[in-house]
């Protein structure tokens, strides 16, 4: 019976983390947006506006549940739950530190890609259930975009999986640092199994994975509907896209899912390409930096700092690049990213057979 309590505690801890991260991320997003545009961002609530998002969520919690008269009640109410749960379940297999993952699934990576796809159904339900032309347009765009971009992102992940030869998230990470039992070759030439650090990350073991990571990063931006791929929300043309009719706590859940998705895709990229909980510091002779900075707490620290850095880059890109048109979006996906991802996959095969032996 004890393990049921453990499950519940882990679930609550993850939810607490996601909620805390969202509050922090919305605040930092607004601050970054302000600084990029030579403004100050929120300044009034708390010192330097630090309590702003807390005040926002308090307001959202207190608001009334409003369901439009013409809405499909069941779909409308269920959609935010499905959108959030789909993303939340993705966290179930993410490794945080050596031996620390909510669930050590052998098909971890496959599971994450599959469960994130459920998000598209939630978005379609939200758009259709709202019975509003803007919502429907937004959700149609969202689904078309997510389904399309899953192909390059999936192919990019496969090209990394071909190098690591496992879908187990924890093993993927282990094979990128000093804890590995296999021989790790930096650029396929130099044995770095005992040196570790930055040099043993997947992107440095096989340099074409940089391209794969870039493809994955761009595709992941599209999958979490972030600018420059935010045509499903497109404030300037579609009011709010699929969440136009939502308010209060339901809107908060859609928002929570969006930021949780940002963190999740950033974390997948970090785990598969950038060494996960492995330290970036290599062993140098008697200075055993990698040995010193590997461990339970260090693992969480490295995972968090790498992932937050990637989330920061996502925000930086959002406040720089203009939105792509729908046809440009599809052209980029099908004519550029997909062929490049296939090319990466082919190189991965060659690399695995000839370079890694």
């Amino acid at each position, binding site marked *: 019976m004890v393990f049921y309590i453990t499950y519940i505690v882990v679930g609550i801890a993850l939810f607490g983390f996601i909620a805390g991260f969202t509050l922090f991320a919305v605040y930092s997003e607004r601050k*970054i947006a*302000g*600084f*990029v*545009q*030579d*403004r*100050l961002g929120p*300044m009034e609530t708390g010192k330097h506006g630090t309590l702003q998002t807390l005040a926002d969520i308090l307001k959202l919690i207190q608001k009334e549940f409003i369901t439009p008269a013409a809405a499909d009640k069941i779909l409308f109410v269920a959609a935010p739950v499905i959108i959030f749960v789909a993303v939340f379940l993705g966290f179930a297999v993410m490794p945080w530190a050596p031996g620390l993952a909510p669930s050590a699934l052998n098909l971890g990576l496959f599971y994450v890609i599959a469960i994130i796809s459920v998000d598209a159904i939630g978005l379609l339900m939200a758009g259709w259930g709202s019975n509003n032309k803007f919502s429907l347009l937004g959700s149609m765009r969202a689904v078309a975009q997510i389904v399309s971009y899953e192909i390059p992102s999936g192919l990019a992940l496969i090209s990394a999986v071909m190098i690591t030869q496992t879908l187990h998230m924890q093993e993927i990470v282990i094979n990128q640092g000093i804890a590995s039992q296999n021989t790790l070759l930096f650029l396929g030439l130099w044995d770095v199994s005992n040196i570790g650090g930055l040099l043993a990350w997947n992107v440095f073991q096989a340099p074409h994975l940089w391209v794969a990571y870039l493809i994955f990063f761009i595709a992941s931006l599209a999958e979490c509907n972030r600018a420059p791929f935010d045509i499903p929300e497109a404030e300037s043309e579609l009011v709010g896209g699929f969440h136009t009719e939502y308010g209060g706590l339901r809107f908060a859940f859609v928002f929570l899912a969006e930021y949780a998705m940002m963190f999740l895709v950033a974390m997948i990229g970090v785990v598969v390409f950038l060494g996960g909980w492995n330290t970036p510091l290599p062993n140098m002779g008697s200075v055993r930096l990698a040995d010193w900075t590997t461990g339970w707490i260090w693992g969480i620290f490295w995972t968090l700092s790498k992932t937050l850095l990637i989330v920061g880059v996502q925000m*930086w*890109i959002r*406040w*720089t*690049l203009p939105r792509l048109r729908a046809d440009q979006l599809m*052209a*980029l996906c099908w*004519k*550029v990213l997909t062929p490049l991802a296939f090319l990466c996959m082919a190189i991965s095969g060659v690399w695995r057979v000839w370079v890694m032996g």
Partner: protein
Amino acid sequence: MFKIALQAFITAAKGLAITLAHLFGARRSREVLDVRKADYFDKQAGVTTVQFPREKMPIPEVARYQLDVEIDDCIVCDLCAKACPVDCITIESVKATDVIGKTSDGSVKRLYAAQFDIDMAKCMYCGLCTVVCPTECITMTDQYDRSMTNLAELTYSFAEMTPAEVEEKKREWTKFQAEEEAAKRK
């Protein structure tokens, strides 16, 4: 297609470099500079936000914002009310029986200002009333920060007479007129 995509990536990188520079440039604030200074447009780096109620941009002393009336200098000629394109000035005058004084520039005052109201909610800050004023008693000031919770508070009253005084002056004038009529009839 790949050429276009490559071009897009290069320009995106340029854009990202610009925003990154601004992101780190936001560590300092642009100091509050006077617009009349010659190097005003040279300072382009840093946060531009002015935290308004706590800091204010310097404005010239001769700035042309809200209207002010020096009622002692007013000869109640009604020219400003006639000049106003939006009719925001309401003036009511009561004739005096004799000269009641002189303004600071020597004009003779023969009318009492029973009412001199300016509705600042209507005013469009054109300044035509200040141009036509013969005694230059209506002027534009450097006051611009006036928010009110009640719309009626935006109607500024400059007349200093109490209703009782107005009544008395009106009675005096009627009496004076009646006496004149009587004198003519004799």
